């Protein structure tokens, strides 16, 4: 299992749209991914779970990944949360 922190770049935080993008990416990996924030944790393959974290813009979340593709997953998730979420999906 590997863990890393990431700063939320989405200007409105983990709302449904951001959660949806994280789920879409996470589902491409075999690894189990858990995201922790403010004493809560959520399965990163669940939109409702992620949204209920209510992680705000500029705060740090902890990403835990375990599985054979964990390195790849970690890298791509950090990029999504720290950089790509700042930009609307259709502008990338």
């Amino acid at each position, binding site marked *: 299992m590997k863990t890393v922190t990431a700063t939320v770049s989405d200007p409105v935080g983990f709302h*449904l*749209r951001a959660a949806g993008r994280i789920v879409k990416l996470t589902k491409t990996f075999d690894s189990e991914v858990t995201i922790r924030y403010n004493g809560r944790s959520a*399965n990163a*393959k669940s*939109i*409702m779970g992620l949204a*209920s974290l209510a992680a705000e813009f500029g705060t740090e979340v902890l990403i835990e990944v375990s599985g054979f593709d964990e390195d790849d997953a970690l890298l791509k998730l950090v990029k999504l949360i720290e950089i790509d979420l700042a930009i609307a*999906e259709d502008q990338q």
Partner: protein
Amino acid sequence: MDTYQGIAASPGYAAGPVHAIRQRAIVPVRRTVRVSEVPDEIKRFGKAVEKARSGLRELIDRLASELGPEGSDILSSQLMILDDEMVWDATLAVIRLERINAEAAFGRTMGELAARFLEIEDETFRERVNDLRDVEQRVLRGFEDSDRPHLVSPDIPSVISARNLTPSDTALLGRNNVLGFVMDEGGNTSHVAILARSIGVPAIVGLKGRAVALKSGSQVAIDGTDGRLVTDPDQEILEKFILLTRQQVVVNQKLEHLKDVPAVTPDGHRVEMMANIELPVEVEEALARGAEGIGLLRTEYLFFQHQTIPTEDDQVRVYSEIVRRMDGRPVIFRTLDVGGDKVSDYLGAKREYNPFLGWRGIRFSLANRLLFKTQIKAIHRAGASGRIKLMFPMVTGLEELREARQVVAEALEELAAQGLEHDPDVPVGIMIETPSAVLAADILAAECDFFSIGTNDLIQYTLAMDRGNSRVSYLYRPLHPAILRSIRMTVEAGHRAGIPVGLCGEMGSETRLAEVLLGLGLDEISLHGAALPKVKQVIRWTDFTEAQRLVDELLKLGTADDADRWLAEYIAERKRQRERGDHE
């Protein structure tokens, strides 16, 4: 017989029996199952979800055709909940580990999720709980064998009463036999209000418990123009309302022929008649009433309905639809106007101590450049489908206008670089709704292409009164000399600079003020579609020079009371003249 006051959400009158809609909630009963039955329970859960999903899909299709794609998006998020991994995992785990029936396991999962959302100190998430409950009920209904609809349409013409109706409820209800709506919750922009206006039936919202207290079959009379509900009306009131309903039809028929004629005074002065709208579905009504364009397209709805920021493509879709349906007639887009009374927590606009003087309108947009630029790009892209103009709200000075124009320039550069189809040459105007914009109108006019006076805010800021505060709402006086002078100053400054000056705001919809607005020299009046034909009629039978004289007289008066009286006498005299004219 009792009379209750609510919020007038759709004009008109109706009288008839109540059709009460009670949203019956299913409470799952918990029962223990044997280990051997667990696979069956899981199968039952799958089937119930499938039933809920196909029901939802059907509703989405129906709503999409009724409201356009943005209307159905609300329900798409419910589809996501149905397919959510956590919802499935948790439900199956409860069935397996605690060996209880599927509906109870699902109910508990959803309850826990809702509790988690309720803990979050953010309005948006708490509102999401309504979606969760809606989904929960949908699935629980899926467990039931019968396909009995949870919502029954009226068999005879009736007034629909409920706490509130969701878009899916109104889609299920249909339009047959609906005389009008009375709701306990909601405001002017709630779904029911918009639907009622688009199908042309009266609606009263915000009745705070009076609507659900109504029994099916009891008689009511509703006045959607003033927001009054009369329960168990006596014969006299009933007859009066039936008469009003009939008159309404007659007046509408009389005004019907005005649809395709321009608003030109007998002495040849032309005023453009435009409509204020918010949704694609309102375009039809605007055109049916003879609107020559959209003078105010509010864009907030899209941002509020989603409760997430719509993407550029989402916005392009909805905006283009409106522009396309207007078929070459101009559409004035007002960029996002949040804050004030339209606080949206999810956009980061937290409640403020003094919201109307706070972070709203163009201030909010300039502080959220990315969001602002995205919207401006979407609007310009929609321009490829017809004729559009761009308008900024709450401008108080040249700095804001210049900075906003800078964002427009950046947006255009990006659109060109991306090779996206768009209108590169969109006129840019501003709302005149603050006293500072009025006083600096000549300075502002030099750097923009048009003005549109927003009278609701202008009156509020000029007279320093909060319309929502019942203790001072008596100060809302459109004919206050300061207001008349402000409008005149703005029109003069605009015309000196050679730019057109329009007006959007409730003042435009008041028939009694039509001559005043004409005399003030406005080039364009934008108002609610329903009021358009009447105002046009007044303009068509009033000489421009006479209206100017009327305004000169009103401007000499010292108080709004005097001006109201003068205007009332003038209108009465004109009516007598017309009636004499008719007999000759």
